[in-house]
C-alpha cells in the first residue's frame, strides 16, 4: 500500500516561515510511522530532520506531533491511521523548532534537573554490604513513574505548558519528583516538596489529563501530579499547624 505523509519543514536560519512537504512511500500496514519517515529520508529527501534511535518506544527520541497528537513515531503503525488519508507530522509543541521535526530539548531537561534538592539524591542509611529493605507494596508506590522515558510528549500535549504558564515545570518533571517523593528509601523529601510547592510547580497543573492521554508508556501522570499535591498539603501544611509553608 501507499502512505501519504505531510511533513512540517522549517529551518529558522533560512526560512521566513514553515511550510509543509508531502511525500508518498510504499509501506505495509504493520510498518511503523518511523519506518515511513526513514523511507522519506533515505530514498527521497536526505535533508529531512527528525530524531530517532531505538525504534521501539524505549529511548524517547522520536516524540513528535502526529495528526495533532503528541506521540512516538516508532510506536505508531500505518494501520493505526485511516487508509488513504494523509498523515500529518509536526514537531512537538511547546519547544522551539531547530529544524523540521527536531526541537530544542534543553529547557525540558533543565526542568527535569530542577526537581532535585540542593543536597541531591540522598537515601536513608543502609548497612554497607546490604540493600535497603523495601516491601513489595512500598516499591509499587512509584512503579508507574520509572516507566518514564523522558520523551516530552506529556509536556507537548499540556495546555498549561503550551499557553497558560510557559514556565510551568511540566508533567514529566513532576513525575520525576514523584518517583523520589514516594520512594520509601529516600531521606526526608521536604526540600523536594518545597520545590514542587513553588510557583510554576505542581499547583500549575489544571488537570486537563492530556499528559495521561498521550503518554506512550501509559503512565497515570495526572494522578501522580495530584498525589504530589496531596503530599505537599500533608507534609508542608499539616492541619492545626498555622504555618502555611514550612514544617
Amino acid at each position, binding site marked *: 500500500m501507499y502512505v501519504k505523509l505531510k511533513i512540517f519543514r522549517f529551518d529558522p536560519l533560512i526560512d521566513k516561515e514553515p511550510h509543509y512537504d508531502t511525500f508518498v512511500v510504499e509501506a505495509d500496514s504493520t510498518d511503523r510511522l518511523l519506518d515511513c519517515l526513514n523511507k522519506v529520508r533515505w530514498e527521497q529527501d536526505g535533508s529531512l530532520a527528525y530524531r530517532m534511535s531505538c525504534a521501539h*518506544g*524505549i529511548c524517547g527520541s522520536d516524540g513528535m506531533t502526529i495528526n495533532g497528537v503528541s506521540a512516538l513515531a516508532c510506536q505508531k503503525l500505518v494501520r493505526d491511521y485511516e487508509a488513504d488519508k494523509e498523515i500529518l507530522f509536526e514537531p512537538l509543541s511547546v519547544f522551539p523548532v531547530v529544524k523540521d521535526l527536531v526541537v530544542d530539548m534543553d529547557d525540558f531537561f533543565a526542568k527535569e534537573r530542577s526537581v532535585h534538592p540542593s543536597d541531591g*539524591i540522598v537515601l536513608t542509611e543502609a548497612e554497607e554490604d546490604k540493600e535497603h529493605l523495601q516491601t513489595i507494596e512500598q516499591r509499587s508506590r512509584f512503579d508507574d513513574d520509572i516507566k518514564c522515558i523522558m520523551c516530552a510528549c506529556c509536556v507537548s500535549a499540556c495546555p498549561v505548558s503550551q499557553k497558560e504558564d510557559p514556565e510551568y515545570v511540566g508533567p514529566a518533571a513532576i513525575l520525576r519528583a514523584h518517583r523520589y517523593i514516594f520512594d520509601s528509601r529516600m531521606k526526608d523529601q521536604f526540600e523536594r516538596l518545597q520545590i514542587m510547592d513553588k510557583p510554576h510547580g505542581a499547583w500549575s497543573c489544571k488537570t486537563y489529563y492530556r499528559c495521561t492521554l498521550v503518554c506512550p508508556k501509559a503512565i497515570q501522570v495526572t494522578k501522580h501530579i495530584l498525589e504530589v499535591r496531596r503530599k505537599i498539603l500533608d507534609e508542608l501544611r499539616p492541619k492545626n499547624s498555622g504555618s502555611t509553608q514550612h514544617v
Partner: protein
Amino acid sequence: MIHECDAAIIGAGIAGLTAALAASETCNVAVISKVYASRSHSGAAQGGIAAALGNEEEDHWEWHMFDTVKGSDYLADQDIAEILAREAPPRVIELEHLGVPFSRDSEGKIEQRLFGGHTRNFGEAPVRRACYASDRTGRVIMDTLYDHCLVRGVKIFNEVFVTSLLTSEGLCCGVSGYELATGEPMIFHAKAVLLATGGCGRIFKTTSMSFAATGDGFALAFDAGVPLEDMEFVQFHPTGIYGLGILVSEAARAEGGVLRNGKGERFMERYAPLLKDLAPRDIISRAILTEIAEGRGIGGSDYVYLDLTHLSKEQLQLKLSEVTSFVRTYLGIDASESPIPVAPTCHYMMGGIPTDAQARVLGDGKSAVLPGLYAAGECACVSVHGANRLGTNSLVDLVVFGRRAGLDIADYVSKNPSVPLPADVELKISSRVDALLAADGKEHVATIREEMEKVMTRLCSVFRDKNGLEQALNKVHELQGKMANLGLSHREKRFNYELEESVELNNMLKLSEVIVHSALQREESRGAHYRNDFPERNDEAWLKHTLVFHVATGLETLYKPVVVTRFEPKPRVY
C-alpha cells in the same frame, strides 16, 4: 570549539555514566553522546543484572564465575571472569544505595530470578541470580546514574558526534568531532579518554539494537592503530519479535515461557535436556534456526513461537510489562492469549577493543597499555564474555568495568601532565566534514548500507562456512569501493543526518570486514561462532583470542592465549 577537561567519556550509557560518577569525585569529566544522553541504548536492557547475592536461594560467586566461563565456551579470560563474579554483589548493592528501584521479594530484599546459563553448584540446575526491575532493568539503572550525574554537575554534551581520537607524543590527548546541530568542530582536550560507545548491531538486517549502535568506538580505536579482539563472536538473541528484531527478554523464559515449533513441540528439550529454554543464547539461536531449516518453523515458515499463554496476567503485568506492551503494539497480540512469533536477532558483540582489568586499552592487544585511552562496556573486550555472553552479564560488566575505568582514570589524571593537542585539530575536523559534505559521487548511503545488512545477515550470522565468508568478504570490499564514490543529496551542515550516517556506514563496513575476516580465520565452532565446515570446538588449535590489526597491506591477524585459572575446558553440555 575546544573544551578543556581531565577526562572525555564517549557514550552516556551505563558504562560511561558509571565511569563518570567514579571519576568525577576528583576530576573534571565531560560525557559526550551522539544522542541525548538519556536515549543511550543501555536503557533498552530488559531482563536483569547478575550477582550472586543469594537472596532467594544459596549462591556463590564461584558458581557465577563458572557459569560465565562455561557460557563463554571457555574463551573468557578466567582472571577477568573472577573479577566480574566477585565484584557483582558489591556493585549491585552500590546501585541500590544510589536508589536503583529493584523489584523486591517478600522479605523486602532485591528479588532475583532465573536466567539462561546461570546455575547452582557448577551446572546442576538453574539458580535465581538475576536482580531486576520488571523488564526495564537497564532503563532504571541508567536513569538513576543519570540523575546522580545531573545533581553532581557532571558536564554532558548531547548530540556531539566524535569522529577521531587525538594522540600526541604517543599519548591519548582527547577527541575531535562535530556538533550535530551546527556541523561545527568540537574538540575535547583531555588527559584521558574512555570509549563507552556500545555495539554495532546495525551491521545486520535484523537487530535488537538502536539505530545509534553503529560501532563508532570500535572504529575510533581501530583507526588509531589498536587491534580488535574476538570480533567473530556476534551474539544473536534467540527471541527477537519476528520481522522487527525487537527484543523479547530472556526473562520471558525465566518466568516460565517456552519455545515451540510448528508441531507444537517444546523443542529445546532435545537440544539442552537439563536447562531447556534457559540454555545459553548461542545454543537456543542455533536450535531455532535448525528447527526452521528442517521445516519445523510455524507453518513451515521462518519463525517459531514463544509461548507465554500459561503465565498469569498478573505475572505478565508485573514482571514482563514492557515485553507484553511491545507485542501488543507491534503485533496486535495479547501475550496471555496468543504465542509470540520470534526469530534470532543480532544482540551483542562479545569482541571489541582489547583492555586490561582496569579498562586500559592495550595498543598491541596483549600487554602494552596505550596511555590515557580506556574502553568499557560492549565496545571493549576485557575479555569476560569470550565466545558467548550470558544474559544479565552485560549490565554487570558495565558497572564492574565502568567503575574500574573511572577509578583508574582519576588516578591517571592526577599523576600525569596534560600534553598539547596536535596542530590544527580544528582545521582538520572541519575540512574532513567539508570533504564529506562535498561528496558528489553516484552511490547512496542507504543503498550501500542495505547491501551490507543483507550480506552480513545471509553469510555471517548464526551459521557460517568458508565459501560464504569468502563471498561476504568480497562483497564488503566491493561496498567499501563504492564508498569512494559516495554522494550526499544535500550540503547543509545543520542536523545533516545523511552526513552522520555516511560516517557511521564507513565505520560499519570496516567492522564488517574485521568480523568476516576473523570468522574466516577461525576454523572451529565455539560459542556464537559456528562453522558448518568445522562443527567441533578445537581447543588444541583454537583456545586463543583473535587480534586483528589494520596494516598498510590490509588486515593482519595475531593470536593471544586465553587465561585459564580454575576451570579446564570441558565439553559444553546443558
